[in-house]
């Protein structure tokens, strides 16, 4: 009302309304003005803090450059997947850190998924005791900070487990002590590449077989036990080739030395603690997601499947799980991201991941706070982007195709 009256009065008086006011009242121009203002504010803020940073660096006599990545790091890393000595460069140290993060994230995601699905399914089972025990485990685990889990498990491994001489052992080849978990080291003989080739061939055959079985199912309704046949091919074919090529694989079994175990692959306590704690902490969140996903499938779907005569495991496999996955995947993605991000807590127990290498010792040694932090932040962003891109791709694949 008042707006109309206002305009009318302006027209009556015959004064040209203020040009800027007219721009402001027009929706399109107003949005452009607002955006220009936002950009201006942002650039002013950025210019201010960058100017401050330049001034501060000048006061401290520092420069902004990534040259330090080429200098020798001169510190040791207790777990390395690639060649690294204290003479290697900071860049190499960063690579070792990235690989360590990727390693613990990879194993953590796999374990957390398996345990999480198991917990979620037990939580839904009719077995009252099992389901309530799992409920207690879930509530206890998820209401305690993940850092505490890591410190607790690390403390137990380092302080409670026996020394290597009295290590718990399984068949004298796997040892668990306060130095970590030691397992036999495989040594691949000459013909082992055939087994690897057979393994990949088996994967190819399985994909082809699954497609063919699905086609047959859609056309004739005949259902093959795809899972069991696939498992058989996956393990059977490489094993057959392995035997045919003369078993070219031997194990270096760890032996008790004077103070420590010799030979074998040792998972250091830091890795073990981080891996177990992250898997446990994430798995209880996954369990709740799985439970919610399966409960989200309406009862009608179960009843309809029973009405067409499907058995319980067929209902799960053909009707419930494909639909539940759609509900499960998006929150599962964010749990995977959380696990990867939480792996940065490694620094609290001295596992050398990205934060501990480039953002920790390298930064302290060189005094390049800005550069190191920028590197660390961008590496984590890349990790996040890669995981969400992969999960988005998977999510799209299983999405409901609506007609």
């Amino acid at each position, binding site marked *: 009302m008042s707006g109309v009256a206002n305009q009318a009065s302006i027209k009556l008086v015959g004064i040209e309304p203020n040009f800027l006011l007219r721009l402001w009242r027009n929706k399109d121009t107003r949005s452009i003005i607002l955006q220009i203002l936002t950009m201006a504010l942002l650039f002013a803020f950025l210019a201010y803090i960058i100017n401050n*940073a330049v001034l*501060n660096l000048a006061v401290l006599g520092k420069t902004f450059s990534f040259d330090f990545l080429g200098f020798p790091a001169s510190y040791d890393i207790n777990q390395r997947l690639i060649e690294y000595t204290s003479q290697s460069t900071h860049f190499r140290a960063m690579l070792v850190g990235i690989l360590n993060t990727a390693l613990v994230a990879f194993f953590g995601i796999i374990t957390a998924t398996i345990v999480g699905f198991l917990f979620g399914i037990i939580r839904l089972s009719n077995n009252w005791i099992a389901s309530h025990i799992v409920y207690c485990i879930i509530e206890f685990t998820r*209401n305690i900070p993940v850092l505490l889990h890591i*410190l607790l498990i690390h403390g137990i491994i380092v302080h409670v487990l026996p020394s290597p001489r009295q290590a718990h052992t399984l068949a004298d080849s796997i040892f668990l002590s306060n130095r970590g978990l030691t397992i036999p080291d495989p040594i691949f003989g000459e013909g082992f590449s055939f087994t690897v080739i057979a393994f990949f061939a088996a994967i190819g055959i399985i994909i082809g077989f699954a497609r063919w079985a699905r086609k047959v199912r859609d056309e004739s309704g005949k259902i093959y036990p795809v899972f069991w046949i696939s498992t058989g091919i996956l393990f059977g074919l490489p094993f057959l080739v392995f035997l045919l090529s003369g078993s070219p694989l031997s194990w270096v079994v760890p032996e008790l030395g004077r103070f420590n175990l010799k030979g074998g692959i040792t998972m250091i306590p830091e890795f073990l603690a981080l891996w177990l704690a992250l898997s446990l902490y994430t798995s209880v969140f996954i369990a709740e997601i799985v439970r919610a996903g399966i409960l989200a499938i309406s009862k009608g779907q179960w009843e309809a499947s029973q009405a067409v005569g499907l058995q319980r495991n067929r209902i799960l496999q053909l009707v419930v799980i494909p639909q539940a996955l759609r509900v499960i995947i998006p929150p599962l993605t964010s749990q995977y991201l959380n696990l990867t991000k939480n792996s940065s807590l490694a620094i609290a127990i001295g596992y050398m991941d990205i934060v501990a290498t480039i953002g920790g010792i390298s930064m302290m040694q060189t005094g390049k706070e800005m550069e190191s*932090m920028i590197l660390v932040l961008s590496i984590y*962003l890349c990790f*996040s*982007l890669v995981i969400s891109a992969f999960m988005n791709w998977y999510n799209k694949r299983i999405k409901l195709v609506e007609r």
Partner: protein
Amino acid sequence: MTPGKEEKTLAVTEGGGYLPGTHPDLPPPSSVHGPIHWIRVNLFGSVTDTALTLLAVYFLYSAITFLAGWMFINAAFTGESRNDCRAVADGACWAFIGNRLSLFIYGFYPEPERWRVDLSFVLLILAIVPVLYEDMPQRGKGLAYSCLYPLIAAWLLVGGFGLEKVSTDQFGGLMLNVVIGVTGIAFSLPIGIVLALGRQSQLPIVRILCVSFIEIIRGVPLITLLFVAAVMLSYFVPPGTDFDLLVRMLIMVTLFASGYMAEVIRGGLQAIPNGQYEAADAMGLKYWQSMRLVVLPQALKISIPGIVNTFIALYKDTTLVIVIGRLDILGIGNSSLADTKWQGLSTEVYIFVALFFFFSCFSMSRYSLWLEKKLHTGH
């Protein structure tokens, strides 16, 4: 039509049986009803179920006997050192915790000033009431007090204006967790609302800025942001400015929480039907009016459970400050382990802190579940 009672009792044949249709109602047999049936179906329904039950019972038995023995029966509750504990019992040594309880709560806050911490805890509870309790009389005034609370608490804890000044380096223990958690949530709420609105804005530049801010914050771990606070943030203020570490930490924690808060509130905004936006437009309300009067009150109300969950996550994450050398409740426990009198008690400390976090977070999550149920009945 229906046979009378007398007729029914008489309808017994000579052999002692009943005539068709006259059998009296008996309770169902115990095989389909009652505790035995329940146990058979729920615990021993199939072979796998039986195995699972036996495994679970065994697990429960060994866990309970072990924990009860270690935590209570064989535990020592008094003593002046670890050796005192070991002399009495070989289980947990809780004397350690009792000995340092005030350190766990107040950190290194000077002893004669600790009433200020107590007072601010009490005022905090009073400030939370109007936010959560909708039917409170005079809720508007209560909310105004809740908004003022951070200032009051800051004055009480830091001092100045008549109170003795306490350096923020002396903050520690549980108090530090609460300070960081509450500040993070209180300040991230308005920022989160702005970001969530910005994310849905019609203006492309505003939207892109908000989306990238939210995604960057959510893409990096909190610990790296704390490192940024510790080593990088002081570069961005004019040279020579004294920038308190606690303030820097609070800024980064707030930014971190606001990224998550924005997503929670976006969920609430998306749950509001389009009709509400259109109705507000039809009433002739401008953008901010329609948001303030129509959309946000509804969106915030349905986001409360999400906000509580964000708070729980943030509260647990406050333990991360130990990586930049600040001693929160976990850090105090961790550093007390260095005391030679009490060496080797890490498990006791961690379990004490774990139980503390469990009880506080579990009750909060129960509250948020209850709230979700309460809000759900409206539909």
